[in-house]
Structures are given as C-alpha cells and as structure tokens.
C-alpha cells in the first residue's frame, strides 16, 4: 500500500470544518494559507495567541524590512522558498522593547552572521537580538513562533470561522 501525504500551499489547500455547540470564537479556527492569501507581503498576522505568546503567518514576497526581537523566534516554511539573512546589530540598534518582533531603522550596523535558504518543512532560528531579513522570489509562506509585539496584526474576525 502506498500513501499520499496531503500538504497545503497558497495555490491549493482544503480547509477543515468546525461543528460545535459552543462559541466558535473560543476556538479561533483559521487556515494558514487562507490567511497568507489575504495578507500583504510581510504582514505578521497572528493565527495563534496564548497570553503573551503568538504564532504569526507571513506571506513572503520580495524583500522584507529588517526585524529584530528580544528573544528567539522560529520560522517554519509552509510553502515556497524563503531566504533568511542575519546580521548583528549596532549597539544603538539593539531591541529595548519587551517582546515580539520590531522593525529596525535602516540597515544593521554589525557583522554579517550568515543566511539560510529554507523550503517547506524547514525550521529556521531567528536568534535573539540579531537582525533578520526575509526574501522570496515567488510568493511563499512561513509560520513564526514568537511573542506578540509591535508588528503583530490581529484580525480574528476576518480570518476565523464564526458560523
């Protein structure tokens, strides 16, 4: 017997269903690819929120701004190919906010740390206190494990199944 594994993509996904005798807002049921299809490039749309922590969907297309966070973040590529470039920050650029990703002004002033080119299923460390930039030639999708922060976008009523 051979198996056929089903994965989703921007161009092809099948959403499941939620049929509950309960307030569906308590479950915040959404789909990563549906969210990414409706998002602007590099918006960080929250799809999971657990008190201060979050998972954000990012539609990668073209080149992003430079971001940094005061804690580790982790990106899992769900569709396409994304290049992540890492630099150290200058002393005057290091994050001083509490949590989540923030854009930095201009270019990072520190040393080049390296880069990762990642495809579906790859998990990438976005290290604490470093600058990172995403770029993708074709529209791609990643999910970022992080904390809610200044760049987090909440639009639960638009992304979740409510009836």
């Amino acid at each position, binding site marked *: 017997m051979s198996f056929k594994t089903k994965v989703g993509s921007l161009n092809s996904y099948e959403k499941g269903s939620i049929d509950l005798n309960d307030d569906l807002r308590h479950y915040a049921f959404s789909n990563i690819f549906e969210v990414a299809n409706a998002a602007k490039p590099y918006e960080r749309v929250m799809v999971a929120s657990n008190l201060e922590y979050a*998972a954000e969907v990012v539609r990668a297309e073209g080149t992003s701004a430079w971001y940094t966070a005061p804690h580790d973040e982790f990106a899992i590529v769900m569709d396409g190919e994304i290049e992540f470039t890492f630099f150290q920050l200058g002393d005057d650029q290091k994050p001083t906010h509490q949590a989540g990703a923030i854009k930095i002004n201009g270019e990072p002033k520190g040393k080049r740390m*390296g880069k990762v080119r990642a495809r579906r299923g790859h*998990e990438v460390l976005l290290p604490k206190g470093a600058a990172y930039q995403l770029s993708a030639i074709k529209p791609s999708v990643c999910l970022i*494990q992080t904390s809610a922060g200044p760049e987090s976008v909440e639009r639960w*009523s638009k992304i979740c199944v409510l009836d």
Partner: protein
Amino acid sequence: MSIASVKLIASAPDPVLGYKKFQFGSFTFERDMYFVHVSWPKGTHTVEVDRFLRAMVRDIGWGFFYGWIFFDDVFGTQNHYGTVDIYAGTYSKGHRDTGVDFLETFNTDDVRVAFETISINWINEGYDPLRAPMETGSPLGPKTRDAAGPLIRGFEPARRMMGLPGDTKPRSDASGHPINRAFADMTFDKPDIEIEPGFEDQVHAFNLFDHIARADVTWNPSFTSITRACICCVTSEEHMLPVIHGNDRNEWFIQLTDEIQWNIQDKNTGNPRGRIVMKAGDVCAMPADIRHQGFSPKRSMLMVLENGTPGLEEKYAKGELEPFPITASRW
C-alpha cells in the same frame, strides 16, 4: 501541600498468567489475558489492556502533561505539578450520582515510579504501545518476557532549538529512525545554510518535517523550539489519541499535513460539544474548559504550541483567566 510518600506494593507473579498485581494507595491494579481491572474502596473498573497500557506509558512520558489524562471516561490522572490525582469516576456523572467515585492524591515521583513498575511488568517483548496500532504488536495473553529497551522514548525536550550545538538531535537514519511508511511519498531536503565563523550557535535550521516523519512513536510530542515559556511540540499522529486530554490551559493545534478529526467534550461533565476536522494548514485553539480526543485516519504531522508558564493552571482554575485565548475585545 505536603503528601506522605506512598510506595507501590507488588504481589508475587500470578501462577497461571505470570503477571503481578499491584497496590498503590487505595487503588489496586490487576491484569489478565485481555483486561486491566482497577479497584478502589467503592468500586472496580475494567479497561481493555491495550488501551490501558497505551495510555499509561504516555502519561509517564508526558510527565502527566498539562491537566487531565483520561485513560477512558472513568479512570485517569490530573497533574498538579508536584502532586498527581488518580481518579475513578470523579468526572463521570453516573459514578458521582451513585457515590462510587474516588480520588486520591500522590506525590508525582511516587506515581511515576508506580506506573513505570506496572508497565514494565505488564508489557511483554514484541508489544510496543508507543507505536501506531499496525506496528504495535499484541499485549494479549500471558506473561512472556519483559520488553527490551527503554519503556518510554522520544520525550527528551530541546533546550533552545533542536539541532543546535549541545542541544537535542533530529532523528535520522544514523539514529535508527527511517522515514515512516506513511511519509514515504514525501521528499526531504536540507536547508541551505551559510554561517560566518563564530555564529554557529546563532545561525541554524533543520528539516522539521523530516524529523517528524522519522518518529517511531505516535501521539508523543517532541519539543523542538522554545521561545521563553512557549514550547513548540511536534508529533506524528496515527489512529487515535490513546487518551482523552482535559485542558488546564489553552493550547493551539496547527495541522502540518493530512487530517485529524477531534471530538470535543465539556471538561467537567464529558458532555459532547461537537467535532473539529483539521486539514493541512488549519489552526485551532483548544480552550481550557474542554476535553479532546483526536482521530487520524492517515499518519499526519501536528504541531502544538503550549504555554509552560508555571502556575497558569491555578489562574484558569480560579477564573482569573478566561478559558479561551482570544478575549472579546480583540474581535
């Protein structure tokens, strides 16, 4: 709360079947060819042996997890993070109404030792309750030989991120974990990584799907990355979750591949609330006031985001936090 230490008392092996009978506090545990019989001062409950052992080894491996682990609708454990309740009928209306429900609290280490001792005696060579049922072998029949190898495995958590220098390693052919038959149609490549000297512990990536596809266990979370107290757990799911999990906090499920069907119940009463079908790319919260049990028709990949902040369970239990993640003002 200080709890007196309780030790497991084992009988001599049964002269016919060869298994030991165990006394732990007010509970007794006895198995025969097909069933486990749990007795307490007010009653007895019988569970099919495969179901019981698949639940028990996971309960041990998960460290009693977050909240309630129902082996079935009657018997289970609740984690208080230092102590563990073992209950029978406490969350079953029929048992409560007839007054035969029972709950006893033990030190966590005592329960762990007791459950490990019972499992080791009752698991025979050739039966592996951590695998999917088609790979598990049979627990039925008399005692043969103790199973070789570790009772539990696959639970070592990453400290920062799997694959970093000094951290846990992803599964591989070299570690004895071939790609599971259910993911043989997938291709697995490695990310392209360029690291400048001195940044080996900062620039890192690995193939998460490859790691999951090689799991030799099912419904066993593998902690792969940690953001402060936010834990990313990934698991390989096939057949049914061998327990019903009652949440003491909110958690989030992210379906990475294929499909899982979830039955949702009220946590306290067990009354059905309905059903959720999650397909690849779907995201869904599991609120703090439910029980859930998953059914995966084909082996699938699931990511679970947990909030491991100490003391959260008390805040939810006292009503200081609402039992769902997205509060009204955010809609």
